[in-house]
């Protein structure tokens, strides 16, 4: 046994019908370290976590906790053995108070000393510097605080291993900072933290070590200083990584027609979701983007364009012709497609097959009384599964059993099949692996080159800089700037977002 290792996993194997999800994977977590688990979607990160937390039984290998071999039978068992998990989605009860959430299921006997419970909760929240009151209803706290409460709950159960599965994907920057502070805090107390994330910057900010998985196999374990970013990415992808830097170079030749009639133009478009009326236009073959902090109104703006939320005023013109867009179907009929920000809530139809999910939008446009024949639907699905390289067992597989990146590709396929002239992509790359991210960015530029207009939104500014030729910057529900050409660089964008008006 390695010195100071709280958790050792050796030769872990896990098979699913037809898939080797994990093949002889080793993983070591030392006391008081933050250890990143990296890999593309489908690399086996989630499976490894699920084996560790007892969700899946393993098909081979050994798990040792602080030197003692253990067999983890169920998530409850894992918890009792000191392995706590905080998932991306909050799994607490929003209608209970913070303290209740921290102690739910852990009180002994039929009676609860509420006063004592709240006191204990308060002490712990203070200690971990979590800005929440024990008696506050959890649902009223921000997502970040909710996540921290989940962590506090785990910590209080005296966990030795804390697993954070994509904890930052729904947090804004300040919240991430707070979370990292908490993580470092816990690290000093000797907790071993496994950190699963897609954000490379965050890995380099807090982690000590990185374990990389690819295709269910271990690529290696590295100390963070020994593995520069580019190398990490190439290890994750299993190839040299020069794609990322120059995907835009071949796109500048795009046939953007900035002088002609805009494909879409809105004047004083007014929604009901707290954004100020705004003007917007996009030309044929143009890729532009909305940027701004979370809550700045960038999503609300595109939702207003698509008619996803109620629009109460403003003029809209498609190719110079005034039109009314009151609901999504109107937008779709005018050749606008919208890939929503929240894939799970607004994108996928979970239990339906990949095929049904792909044809959905086109089918709706075709009409209630004109269903596609089975053969036609299969042809569409086949075509797009191939085109976008969607990894699925079959067309009939329910979309919810696909990995996040592949789900996103299915939604993308749905909207490409609808053959729009104007495609809105709201956070298409969130929560998906680097390889698919690049694929999607390339696809966006390719579509633009084919003459489609695209609005691209991403939280990662470098991604926006790489793909967009014009950026609309928003702050507090208002458009505060428009950047193009040489102004399209990180510093300038940051300054505009922050409010340093251009001088």
């Amino acid at each position, binding site marked *: 046994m390695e010195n100071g290792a709280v958790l050792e996993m050796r030769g872990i194997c896990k098979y699913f019908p037809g898939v080797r999800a994990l093949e002889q994977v080793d993983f070591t977590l030392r006391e008081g370290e933050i250890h990143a688990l990296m890999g593309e979607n489908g690399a086996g990160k989630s499976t490894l976590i699920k084996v560790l937390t007892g969700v899946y039984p393993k098909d081979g290998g050994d798990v040792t906790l602080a030197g003692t071999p253990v067999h983890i039978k169920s998530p409850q068992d894992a918890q009792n053995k000191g392995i706590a998990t905080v998932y991306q989605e909050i799994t607490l009860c929003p209608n209970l108070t913070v303290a209740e959430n921290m102690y739910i299921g852990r009180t002994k006997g039929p009676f609860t000393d509420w006063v004592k419970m709240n006191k204990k909760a308060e002490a712990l929240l203070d200690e971990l510097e979590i800005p929440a009151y024990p008696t506050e209803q959890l649902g009223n706290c921000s997502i970040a605080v909710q996540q921290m409460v989940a962590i506090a709950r785990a910590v209080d159960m005296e966990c030795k291993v804390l697993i954070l599965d994509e904890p930052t994907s729904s947090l804004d920057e300040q919240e991430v900072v707070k979370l990292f502070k908490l993580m470092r805090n816990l690290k000093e107390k000797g907790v071993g933290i496994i950190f699963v994330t897609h954000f490379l910057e965050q890995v380099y900010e807090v982690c000590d070590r990185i374990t990389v998985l690819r295709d269910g196999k271990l690529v290696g374990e590295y100390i963070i200083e020994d593995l520069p970013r580019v190398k990490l990415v190439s290890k994750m992808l299993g190839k040299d990584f020069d794609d990322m830097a120059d995907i835009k170079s071949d796109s500048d030749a795009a046939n953007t027609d900035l002088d002609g009639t805009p494909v879409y133009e809105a004047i004083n478009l007014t929604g009901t979701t707290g954004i100020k009326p705004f003007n917007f236009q996009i030309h044929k073959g143009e890729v532009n983007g909305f940027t701004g902090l979370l809550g700045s109104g960038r999503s609300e703006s595109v939702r207003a364009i698509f008619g996803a939320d109620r629009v109460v005023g403003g003029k809209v013109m498609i190719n110079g012709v005034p039109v009314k867009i009151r609901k999504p179907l109107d937008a779709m009929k005018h050749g606008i497609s919208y890939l929503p920000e929240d894939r799970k809530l*607004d994108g996928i139809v*979970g239990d339906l097959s990949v095929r049904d999910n792909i044809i959905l939008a086109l089918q*709706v446009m075709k009409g209630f*009384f004109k269903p596609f024949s089975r053969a036609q639907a299969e042809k569409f699905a086949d075509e797009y599964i191939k085109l976008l390289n969607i990894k699925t*067992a079959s067309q009939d597989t329910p979309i919810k059993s696909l990995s996040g990146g592949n789900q996103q590709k299915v939604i993308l396929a749905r909207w490409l099949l609808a053959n729009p002239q104007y495609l809105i992509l709201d956070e298409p790359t969130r929560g998906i692996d680097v390889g698919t991210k690049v694929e999607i960015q390339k696809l966006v530029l390719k579509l633009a080159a084919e003459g489609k207009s695209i609005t691209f939104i991403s939280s990662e500014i470098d991604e926006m800089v790489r793909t967009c030729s014009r950026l609309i910057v928003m702050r507090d529900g208002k458009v505060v700037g428009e950047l193009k050409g040489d102004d399209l660089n990180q510093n300038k964008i940051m300054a505009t977002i922050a409010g340093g008006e251009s001088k």
Partner: protein
Amino acid sequence: MTESATNNSKSSAKGILLKIVRNQLFIPLAALLLLVLFNLFTDPGFFDIVLKPSSTGSLILSGNLITIIDNASELVILAIGMTLVTSASGGQDISVGATIAIAGSTVLRIVKTQASDIPGGKFAGIIIISFLLCVVVSAAFGAFNGALVAFFKIQPMVATLILFTAGRSIAAWINNNDNISINDNRFGYFGNFIPGIPVPTPVFITVICLIVIAVVLKLTNLRLYSQSVGINASSSRLNGINPKMIKLLTFVILGVCVAVCGFIKVSRTSSITYSVIANNIEMDAILAVALGGNNLGGGKFNLTASVIGAYVIQFLTTTLYKFKEIDSSSISAYKAVVVILLIIISSPYIRKRFDDLKNKRLAAKAQANVGKEAN
């Protein structure tokens, strides 16, 4: 590699067996088969069908099987609508029994005004008018339920509780709480036999309903839309579907099913007892959907499974009635025991166990393949 593993499972007999067991139709069909076998052993003559003269003198088919299929008609027709409502709204309509009373009462209100000796052509006209009116009324009540669910976002069971409570009073009010009895025996054709045809008329009506819904599902996107709405309404809306209209539509379709049932029901007896007609049928209809292995929380549905589920329930009821030892008032208790068993078997938990069994086998296979590849 994924493909090879699936092919392997397909080729082995065990794999096929598991595939059958996991099919949604398996449990209702197995239950049906069990009931058939049980009756065959306890009473070899159970399935005898004879052609014998009825009270009116014409030859009719008679036997337990005929009774079951005949009596199941209303339940089967209701199961169609209930399945759709369940799929789109993720809830159930508990007012169908009461709305059947309304529908039946509406029919009688029209028919009772006519003398019993009017000529056939005019009689047919009255029947058609009364039926159409009853469809309109039931569909309107369905729309009322649907509107509460779709626009006011009231849980279906709570929304339909209103008509569940008020429906039978409304039915009585339609006919001033009169005891109506239609003397024209032509009115009874639809719930019993048409002279010269040995098969009960409700069976034909059921078949027509099943054909109609099959055609509707084939020619429209009702299945895709209602499943989509039931699974993820928000996502459906962003794909251009109007979830409210789809929910409303399924309730209206159920309303039409209710109208057909009400019509059959009053025709069976040529009369109506407001407080008893179609009593508790809503629970049987919901049960049929559940027995079919459909998720009562909405989403994907299998109509065939619901229909078989409905026949299973009727089969069970008839079987229990056959036992002289069982007091008719305690039949419900016996029925409940069997139903509990069926529901447990078709529960997601047990289904998951079946799945696990299959996955384990496939995983072992995959492992073997891996070994082969390595060599």
